[in-house]
């Protein structure tokens, strides 16, 4: 099978084009460095199938960072029949230089000028045919986002593979490229993104910029709470009704033990977790919107001064924000950093980000123990605690991981994602959530059920069960934090995946929906709940996060440290909170 690779500088729309051409759903976003790994998919061109590969963005092939090394390794180890060099049509002059590092490879090149829509809006004129003959390679104008020019591009790829193109002259140098750009591209003197300028004047305002940023964040979380909560209540009601009306009568013939496992174990656990699906969708739609607008680069700009006091930079802050979705892609996103110290320090703080899985646990506890009026504030306080824990960590360790990286970061124009981009992204996240659910949660809740119901004869979830014994064993460590044996069991499973925490509580209390909430409120008070939430927020990240830290850092001692430090920090924070709160 022939292999075609998409290559280009960061944030030029390679992944958007890849998705368009192959119908895949790799993540795209208005931030340089969204893609940090290889993705490949089959591309159907008439009767032929070729393999299309999406690569991280690169400035040349020297590979200064991990993500750029991915590209150079890929090119060194694989035969590539055709390279599609993707260039932002409004920045041809600087981006064309990439061709000079690709030419010596001897692979035929096709030049793709993407974002034709933006170039046109800026009044930029490009003479494609002239550019093509000067460069000695086909040139194609497209807009990956709007889907313009894709048919031509497909035809071009097909013909270029059938009658192989000549590779470009190996000696094509930067002077020749600059000259070609000058001769074929006409940029008006004042080519600026007018809307972006206007928005930046407000959003990057010297005094208002930061308050606006935190205001926007607060409103987003608030919105998720107000919109998501009723939907989640409706979902729990639905699962409750389904169980009582349809499933219980259906299963009446089964033995007691099996029914217990099915209902109090699997069903309670899964239904509790599943009732959060709409909320997760909503949350990720918001995240996708923020990531696609280009506001992340502005957040980096606004926060860099503060972050540098903590030994990090604006990009680290953006990774913490991305970690609010899921820690794993945020950890991988640090590949764009050149300084190893900065990268390790950022990877140390990312797991403290309040990810969407922890969000479910907190929404659940907040719903059970706090009045609706204060609920959103409690949630926001946890987000602030998450950032504070990250800052404290970096303050303690910034000397051990020194940062000498320069911060040179593009501030792309604001872009509004299309509806289909947002929906696809939301869909993708749900699939990801469900995959995790099937992998961890089913096994987790079954295990919790077994632990809370055996040995045979012990009253369910009592101190005599295995779970009770385990909880009692750890009790001396956790009771000073106000965490009782039942919650301890949930915490142990939360180590595997935070999604299991509420699933296992449902099993432990043998209830779901509203009944579970009131059972929880009967067992613990709000101080215990907040202490538990603090502990859950900070303690050991989930297994996938640990695995990612291990593969990204390639260092076992660091990984152990990245597990032990948050655990210790969590204990101290919860201890201080709980002991202070009960004594006043």
């Amino acid at each position: 099978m022939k292999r075609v690779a998409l290559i280009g500088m960061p944030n030029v729309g390679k992944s958007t084009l890849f998705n368009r051409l192959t119908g895949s759903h790799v993540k795209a976003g208005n931030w340089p460095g969204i893609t940090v790994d290889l993705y490949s998919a089959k591309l159907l061109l008439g009767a032929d199938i070729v393999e299309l590969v999406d690569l991280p963005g690169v400035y040349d092939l020297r590979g200064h960072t991990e993500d750029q090394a991915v590209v150079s390794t890929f090119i060194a180890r694989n035969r590539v029949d055709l390279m599609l060099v993707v260039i932002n049509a409004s920045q041809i002059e600087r981006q064309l230089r990439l061709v000079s590092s690709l030419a010596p490879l001897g692979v035929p090149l096709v030049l793709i000028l993407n974002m034709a829509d933006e170039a046109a809006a800026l009044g930029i004129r490009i003479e494609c045919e002239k550019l093509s003959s000067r460069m000695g390679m086909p040139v194609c104008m497209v807009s990956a986002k709007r889907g313009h020019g894709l048919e031509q591009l497909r035809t071009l790829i097909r013909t270029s593979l059938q009658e192989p193109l000549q590779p470009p002259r190996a000696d094509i140098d930067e002077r020749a490229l600059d000259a070609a750009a000058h001769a074929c591209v006409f940029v008006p003197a004042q080519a600026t993104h007018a809307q972006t300028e206007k928005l930046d004047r407000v959003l990057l305002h010297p005094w208002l910029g930061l308050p606006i940023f935190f205001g926007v964040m607060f409103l987003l979380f608030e919105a998720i709470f107000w919109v998501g909560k009723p939907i989640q209540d409706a979902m729990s009601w639905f699962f409750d009704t389904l169980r009582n009306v349809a499933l219980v009568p259906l299963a009446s013939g089964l033995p007691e033990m099996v029914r217990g496992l099915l209902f109090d174990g699997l069903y309670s656990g899964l239904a509790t977790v599943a009732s959060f699906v709409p909320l997760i969708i909503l949350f990720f739609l918001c995240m996708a919107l923020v990531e696609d607008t280009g506001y992340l680069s502005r957040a980096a700009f606004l926060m860099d001064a503060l972050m540098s006091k903590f030994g990090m930079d604006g990009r680290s802050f953006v990774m913490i924000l991305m970690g609010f979705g899921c820690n794993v892609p945020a950890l991988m996103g640090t590949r764009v950093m050149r300084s190893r110290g900065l990268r390790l320090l950022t990877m140390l703080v990312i797991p403290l980000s309040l990810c969407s899985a922890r969000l479910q646990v907190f929404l659940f506890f907040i719903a059970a123990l706090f009045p609706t009026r204060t609920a959103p504030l409690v949630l926001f306080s946890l987000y602030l605690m998450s950032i504070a824990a990250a800052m404290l960590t970096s303050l303690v360790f910034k000397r051990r991981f020194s940062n000498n990286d320069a911060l040179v970061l593009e501030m792309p124009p604001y872009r509004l994602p299309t509806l289909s981009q947002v929906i696809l992204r939301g869909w993708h996240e749900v699939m990801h959530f469900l995959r995790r659910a099937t992998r961890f949660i089913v096994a987790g809740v079954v295990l919790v059920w077994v632990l809370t119901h055996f040995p045979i004869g012990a009253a369910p979830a009592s101190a005599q069960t295995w779970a009770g014994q385990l909880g009692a064993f750890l009790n001396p460590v956790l009771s000073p934090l106000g965490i009782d044996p039942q919650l301890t069991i949930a915490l142990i499973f939360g180590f595997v995946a935070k999604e299991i925490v509420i699933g296992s509580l449902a099993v432990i209390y043998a209830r779901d929906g509203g009944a579970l909430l009131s059972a929880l409120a009967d067992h613990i008070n709000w101080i215990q709940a907040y202490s538990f939430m603090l502990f859950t927020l900070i303690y050991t990240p989930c297994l996938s996060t640990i695995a990612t830290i291990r593969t990204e850092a390639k260092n076992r001692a660091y990984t152990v440290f990245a597990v032990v430090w948050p655990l210790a920090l969590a204990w101290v924070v919860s201890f201080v909170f709980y002991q202070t709160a009960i004594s006043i």
Partner: protein
Amino acid sequence: MRTLDSLTTGERAIIRTLEVSEDLAYCLSAFGFRIGKTVQLIRRARFAGPLHIRIDTTDLMLRACDARCIEVQRQPA
């Protein structure tokens, strides 16, 4: 000669020297920084934060300490 970080907001200037570390030179050249190019300072972030710089049609941020290594000359009007 003045350095890039000393520009006032909105001011344009021409790059004269780029005597920076190898790493920084690499980043800057990727963004089109070359001797003779015109750059404009759009704004600065508060608390000695980064500079918002425009070069051709690219906007980027650069820390003031790095901008100090770039000598510029006022653009003749």
